[in-house]
């Protein structure tokens, strides 16, 4: 199997091997190229996505392949990007806008919440918004202020939005194509700290993941990234790989941790959560975003509702703190690290009913 793959080669001109080694950045780039090739109403636009190929090179080569009508640079104004996307969707296009960093979604929040999320509702279904907003998300790259935000609880709270975050190249490739095919607005949160990590990607459509807890098509709901029986670690985005590291370490001590990759943050896979935690009877939810009213609170509430009788301990939350996202020098103190997650696991395992 080739480790390198020319991602700019059109799909039709290559023999697609069933498994290719891709970074998440390459996997998303490849998915975007296939989307543009397959759907002539799909458009990619944002700041520096054209000639430059995006600051993370996720759109590298796409303008050269598909032209400046399909892939274009916009003025530096995020509300303008989202408002324009809404109008293009009203004109029958399938916009895939990018905001360059999570924190730069804030200037677009008015258009996202008051317009994008509501247009289908306001128009009684006459003006659907098949818009997939790509947001390089979360922290971990020593970036300047507002380049490491976790917006999932904000967007998940908004009626009319769907929110998803892939954890690895395989998920990114398939979930992006799935999101773009959906007729509703999707916030696609790409864990920028994982852009450069390579993994094998099965490019075949309709790959049903063997780990899927309830055997559905692999692109909906959560997925079990590692099976275990003593407790469930629930995570998304970059925290999934960290939880897998934790599970590896815990296994050395005979603790078998299940890692549930939530993937969809709205809607949350309530059945998948319940299935896993009702087996392990202990749960730790891990996220980078601040603690209070973070998505972990929603996950904990869902678990307490579905698994109250079988839970052996209160649901533990290992999260960022209620502080502004710190400068790069301190971000390792902020983002849940292996030790903090292990402490959370320990608290859950050692809990005894008083």
């Amino acid at each position, binding site marked *: 199997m080739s480790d390198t793959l020319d991602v700019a080669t059109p799909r039709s001109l290559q023999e697609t091997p069933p498994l290719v080694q891709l970074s998440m950045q390459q996997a998303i780039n490849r998915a975007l190229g296939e989307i543009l090739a397959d759907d002539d109403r799909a458009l990619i636009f944002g700041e520096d996505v054209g000639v430059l190929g995006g600051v993370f090179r996720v759109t590298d080569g796409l303008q050269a392949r598909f032209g400046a009508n399909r892939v274009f640079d916009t003025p530096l104004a995020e509300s303008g990007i989202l408002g324009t996307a809404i109008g293009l969707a*009203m004109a029958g296009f399938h916009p895939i806008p990018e905001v360059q960093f999570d924190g730069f979604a804030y200037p677009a929040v008015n258009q996202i919440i008051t*317009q994008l999320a509501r247009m289908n509702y306001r128009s009684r279904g*006459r*003006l659907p918004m098949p818009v997939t907003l790509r947001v390089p998300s979360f922290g971990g790259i020593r970036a300047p202020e507002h380049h490491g935000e976790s917006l999932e609880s904000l967007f998940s709270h908004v009626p009319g939005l769907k929110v998803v975050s892939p954890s690895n190249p395989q998920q990114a490739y398939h979930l992006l194509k799935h999101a773009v095919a959906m*007729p509703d607005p999707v916030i696609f949160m790409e864990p920028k700290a994982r852009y450069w990590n390579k993994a094998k990607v099965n490019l075949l459509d309709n790959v049903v993941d063997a780990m899927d807890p309830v055997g559905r098509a692999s692109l909906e709901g959560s997925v079990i990234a590692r099976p275990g029986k003593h407790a469930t670690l629930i995570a998304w985005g970059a925290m999934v790989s960290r939880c897998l590291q934790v599970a590896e370490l815990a296994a050395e001590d005979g603790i078998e941790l299940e890692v549930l990759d939530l993937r969809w943050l709205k809607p949350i896979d309530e059945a998948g959560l319940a299935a896993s935690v009702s087996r392990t009877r202990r749960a730790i939810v891990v996220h980078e975003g601040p603690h209070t009213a973070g998505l972990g609170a929603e996950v904990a509430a869902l678990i307490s509702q579905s698994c109250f009788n079988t839970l052996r301990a209160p649901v533990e939350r290992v999260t960022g703190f209620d502080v502004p996202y710190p400068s790069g020098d301190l971000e390792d103190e902020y983002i849940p690290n292996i030790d903090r997650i292990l402490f959370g696991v320990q608290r859950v395992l050692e809990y005894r009913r008083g």
Partner: protein
Amino acid sequence: MTPRALAATLDTLPLAQTDAPGFDPSRMRDLYRMLSNVRRLDTAAVAWQRQGLIPGYAPMLGQEAAQVGAGAAVDTTRDFVFPTYREMGVAYTLGVNMVDYMSTHKAIWHGGLYDSIATRFAPFQAVVGGSVLHAVGWAHGQTLNGATASAVEDGLGVGLAFLGDGASSQGDVHEAMNFAAILKAPVVFFVQNNGWAISVPTEQQVAGGSVADRAAGYGMPALRVDGNDVLAVLAATQRAVAHARAGLGPVVVEAMTYRRGPHSTSDDPGRYRTLDDEKIDGGEDPLSRFRDVLLAQGVADAAFFARVDAAAQQHADDIRDGVVALESRPGSEMFDFVFQESTPTLGAQARQWREESEHV
């Protein structure tokens, strides 16, 4: 407050695009008919609120010429209008079913019950300046459609963004004008400068005094027009639409008019302006003014006006009957239109609502 004089006409649209037709008599009578219907319906809607039929309404008294004139320049086979919450006159001129339009004021459905695709009139928009960018995106879509279409000689569909002097303060309006000019999108930014953003006068709202003046900074042509002269508005909007349709890019039209009534039926203009202010600043009533033109030109006579005004009253009464008959939408619709493809979570909430509210 000093009387508001119309600033010197700003007219930067290339003369080559000037092909404003003369208006034939039946067209002029049609325009009056629409003005009269809109006036009666607007004043009736205020009365409906006082009668308790509808909870609120945003009157457009004084802006009839601006709205009918602009709406009459729209080609509903290919253009698309992006209104605010005060475009009843545009909606009427486009042929939107007015009971469906008024449904938003009866609190039946925020966006109104009309079909935006069929009417070419986007949903009722409550966010000031919220839909201006949508017009730019939609219009850019027409450019992209044109780029792949075999025949483009007929010209592009044009997006008409409606906004006011207050909205011109919003950052989104700047972003929209900049995007439109960069993309050379076929958009007409139709600004009704009605003197007031609720209680704040244009002098305290628009630095430099003119929204149209700003167009120059974006490299866009602009027209400033007497917004109380329906023929002038129609001619200006037609010129602007023709410019955009020809692929020459966006245009700003600033129609100078006056909001004669309150901002909404909850507003009390007595707290920020006097009746004398209104008389002086409001200028001549756009309806009586156009009536005088028609009389002077011999296009219509007193019998015509009596007939049209009586029909306008009948029209308003008919709409009232329709609004009275409007029934609440079923509560299940709260859940039906959130997504095209609903979610298990939302489905569960809908089931629970049904069980606990309808006891089924």
